[in-house]
């Protein structure tokens, strides 16, 4: 028999906790303590209060079924739970927890030794040590929640397995396994493998390019080597040429000097043969021409110098010298003649200018002269037509007098005519009337006589005569006036006419002078032109003579130079050949040097390519990626190993626990089950292989009925199932080692008859080997059927 455990419940005080609004005190004894009450009376809450007292939490709080505030009674502002428990050989401890809605939680532990602890961590650790349980283990052994009972009885095999794992405390293993998910790691590995593959490809391409470049570098180096050897040979050849060229130092300059001289002399001596006779004859021709020129220029002295000249081979140069002197004198005189002609031309220009000015002035005066002459002609015409001025004035005076007379006569005639017309009218009326002017009597004859006189004397004729006279008078007056105006005009223009006449005279004189100068200039120019032609011919002859003399001198000189030039030409040809060789070698040298530089530049370009840098970079990145890949694969491997290990652990723990629990269940069945229909019961683990999840293990609860094992849920009644589940719970209680000497069973056997319950309740303490059992039931009569039992009645609070 196992030794009874040490911690026992003695008292629980609750206030404001769940349904316990007011303070309630529950005392517990050793042995069986039955809490009896209807639904909602607080049976389960009492068990929750005990758990809360020990651990400061509950099954519902931990699973977040409700909040801590929900533990407080709806009519209270806080809760208080006090649990007194006895520890064997030590005494009674008490733990008190107070939680207020506004002040948080406080906890106190009082030990049998008078100590008080209120620091939560110390209290929790002390209680855990005293009970030998943490809250997880407590809920899996001492106080199994009825939720588990339901799930085990009516849940699916997998649910049942998880519940059993949970009750065994090994559900964490399953959760850990599920947490060890390698999907993300594998996805990351796949990504990185992709990048690694790309980098390897890139590296291979770069490697090929690198090798290509190295090949090119090698080829370029070989090519440079060949070129350098060639360069060395060319330099050597060039040195040889330079050495040989040093033997021709100064040749080039001397050769060119001689060559120039040779060419000059060649040109000078080129042409037909020169002889002395020709020169003598030419000099004779020049003498004749010079004689003519000197005569024309009136240079008698110079002409005398020509007379004694004897032209021979030995006097040629003296004659030439004398000719030059005489020719110079002739040119001087010729220049003087030319100057005189220029003077004359200047004079001519001056006079021509004066003439132009005169003509301009004359043209300006011509309108005035024209006007004067026109007035003169007009005046002459008037004199011829009207006579002189005196005659005209007399005629005007006479016509004036006559006109006055006629006008008076006309006035009188008009007056008389009016009187007579009056008298004629009156006579017609009265036969006789008296003249109002003279007083004479006028008879009827007067009218007849009046008509006849009217026909004889016409006033109109007189008036016509007056008009004609007026016109004549006006004309004469106008002519007189015009004559006066013409005279005034002529007086005004008279001075200009005088100037005009004088200028015209001067113009005639100038025209004469100009004509004379032109003749003189023409004659002088003809003469000087002729002399000039002769002088030019003499100059040409002198030039020819001089050149011929010089050519005669140069021919001898040319022969010497020709010999020297021939010798130098031979040497120079050799020198030139060497220079050409040198130029060719230098050209080759430059070409090779350029090629070498080009190759070296290409080489530098090849070695400085980015390929190596990129290769290094990609290589480094690949190393990093491979390191990362290795790390992740290691991680994947570790996670897989760990997951497999946890799966193995899960199976092992299941099996390890199952054997003990199964054995205890069989004991409970044998001792407490009053019937024989269930022969045996067992909890086992079986393994199966799932293609997706791999190897898996599951629990199997079986009952042996009629000699055959079958799954417990298939053939058992609800009551039988409840009993087997209770046996399982008790197995869990026994499975965990702890110091709790009590067990709490919340309505452990629903659907079971009273007799069966009495049998179980009365023996459960002994089966479990505990000193104290607290269980709840709704059945009040069970209490009366049991003997030494502490019954606590709870009433439903209304």
């Amino acid at each position: 028999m196992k030794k009874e455990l040490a911690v026992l419940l003695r008292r629980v005080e609750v206030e404001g906790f769940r349904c316990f609004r007011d303070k309630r005190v529950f005392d517990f004894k050793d042995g069986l303590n039955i809490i009896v009450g209807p639904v909602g009376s607080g049976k389960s809450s009492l068990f929750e209060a005990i758990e809360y007292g020990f651990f400061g939490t509950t099954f519902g709080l931990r699973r977040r079924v409700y909040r801590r505030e929900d533990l407080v009674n709806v009519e209270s502002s806080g809760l208080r739970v006090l649990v007194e428990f006895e520890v064997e050989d030590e005494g009674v401890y008490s733990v008190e927890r107070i939680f207020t809605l506004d002040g948080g939680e406080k906890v106190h532990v009082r030990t049998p030794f008078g100590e008080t602890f209120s620091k939560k961590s110390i209290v929790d650790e002390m209680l855990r040590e005293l009970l030998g349980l943490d809250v997880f283990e407590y809920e899996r052994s001492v106080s199994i929640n009825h939720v588990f009972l339901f799930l085990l009885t009516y849940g699916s095999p997998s649910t049942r397995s998880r519940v059993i794992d949970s009750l065994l405390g090994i559900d964490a293993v399953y959760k850990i396994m599920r947490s060890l998910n390698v999907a993300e790691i594998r996805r990351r590995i796949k990504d990185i493998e992709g990048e690694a593959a790309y980098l390897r490809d890139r590296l291979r391409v770069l490697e090929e390019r690198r090798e290509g470049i190295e090949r090119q570098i090698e080829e370029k180096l070989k090519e440079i080597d060949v070129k350098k050897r060639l360069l060395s040979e060319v330099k050597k050849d060039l040195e040889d040429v330079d050495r040989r060229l040093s033997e021709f130092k100064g040749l080039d300059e001397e050769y060119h000097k001689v060559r120039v001289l040779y060419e000059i002399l060649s040109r000078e001596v080129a042409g037909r043969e020169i002889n002395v006779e020709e020169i003598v004859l030419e000099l004779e021709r020049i003498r004749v021409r010079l004689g003519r020129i000197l005569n024309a220029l009136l240079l008698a002295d110079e002409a005398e110098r020509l007379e004694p000249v004897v032209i021979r081979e030995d006097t040629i140069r003296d004659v030439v010298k004398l000719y030059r002197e005489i020719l110079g004198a002739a040119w001087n005189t010729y220049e003087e003649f030319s100057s005189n002609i220029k003077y004359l031309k200047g004079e001519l220009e001056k006079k021509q200018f004066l003439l132009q000015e005169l003509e301009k002035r004359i043209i300006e005066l011509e309108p005035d002269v024209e006007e004067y002459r026109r007035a003169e002609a007009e005046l002459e015409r008037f004199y011829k037509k009207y006579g002189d001025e005196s005659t005209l004035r007399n005629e005007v005076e006479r016509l004036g007098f006559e006109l006055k007379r006629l006008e008076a006569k006309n006035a009188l005639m008009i007056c008389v005519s009016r009187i007579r017309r009056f008298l004629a009218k009156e006579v017609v009326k009265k036969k006789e009337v008296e003249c109002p002017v003279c007083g004479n009597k006028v008879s009827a004859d007067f009218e007849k006589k009046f008509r006849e006189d009217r026909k004889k004397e016409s006033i109109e004729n007189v008036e016509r005569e007056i008009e004609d006279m007026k016109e004549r008078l006006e004309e004469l007056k106008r002519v007189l006036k015009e004559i006066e105006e013409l005279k005034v005009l002529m007086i005004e223009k008279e001075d200009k006419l005088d100037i005009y006449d004088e200028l015209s005279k001067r113009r005639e004189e100038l025209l004469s002078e100009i004509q004379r100068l032109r003749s003189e200039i023409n004659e002088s120019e003809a003469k000087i032109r002729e002399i000039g032609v002769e002088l030019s011919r003499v100059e040409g002859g002198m030039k020819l003579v001089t050149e011929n003399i010089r050519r005669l001198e140069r021919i001898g000189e040319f022969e010497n130079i020709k010999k020297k030039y021939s010798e130098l030409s031979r040497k120079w040809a050799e020198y030139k050949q060497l220079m050409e060789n040198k130029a060719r070698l230098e050209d080759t040298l430059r070409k090779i040097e350029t090629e070498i530089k080009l190759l070296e530049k290409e080489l530098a370009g090849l070695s400085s390519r980015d390929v190596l840098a990129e290769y290094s970079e990609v290589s480094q990145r690949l190393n990093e990626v491979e390191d990362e890949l290795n790390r992740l694969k290691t991680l994947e491997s570790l996670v897989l190993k760990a997951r497999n290990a946890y799966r193995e652990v899960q199976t092992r723990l299941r099996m390890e626990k199952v054997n003990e629990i199964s054995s205890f269940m069989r004991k409970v069945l044998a001792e407490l089950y009053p019937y024989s229909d269930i022969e045996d019961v067992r909890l086992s683990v079986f393994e199966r292989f799932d293609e997706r999840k791999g190897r898996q293990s599951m629990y199997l609860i079986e009952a042996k009925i009629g000699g055959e094992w079958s799954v417990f849920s298939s053939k058992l009644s609800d009551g039988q199932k409840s009993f087997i589940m209770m046996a399982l719970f008790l197995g869990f209680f026994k499975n965990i080692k702890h110091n709790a000497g009590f067990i709490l069973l919340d309505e452990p056997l629903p659907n079971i008859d009273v007799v069966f319950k009495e049998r179980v309740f009365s023996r459960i303490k002994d089966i479990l080997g505990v000193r104290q059992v607290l269980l709840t039931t709704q059945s009040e009569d069970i209490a009366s059927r049991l003997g030494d039992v502490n019954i606590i009645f709870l009433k439903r609070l209304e």
Partner: protein
Amino acid sequence: MSEKRYLGRSVETSIKSELKRVLGEDREALMFAEKVLEEYVHGGSRAVKRFLERLLEGEEGVGSSTEKG
């Protein structure tokens, strides 16, 4: 203040003991599995997932658990 736990001590001990039996030959894997267990004890499944995320991101070395051990 006591540390919050997601696993009972006796079960933790049992799991550790079983892990040693299963992975006794593979010290690195054992240390890793124990580290995972430790994470679970103090932070539950979420702590284990976070631990794996840290490992995945390289914030924590794969061998760190070994080194610590």
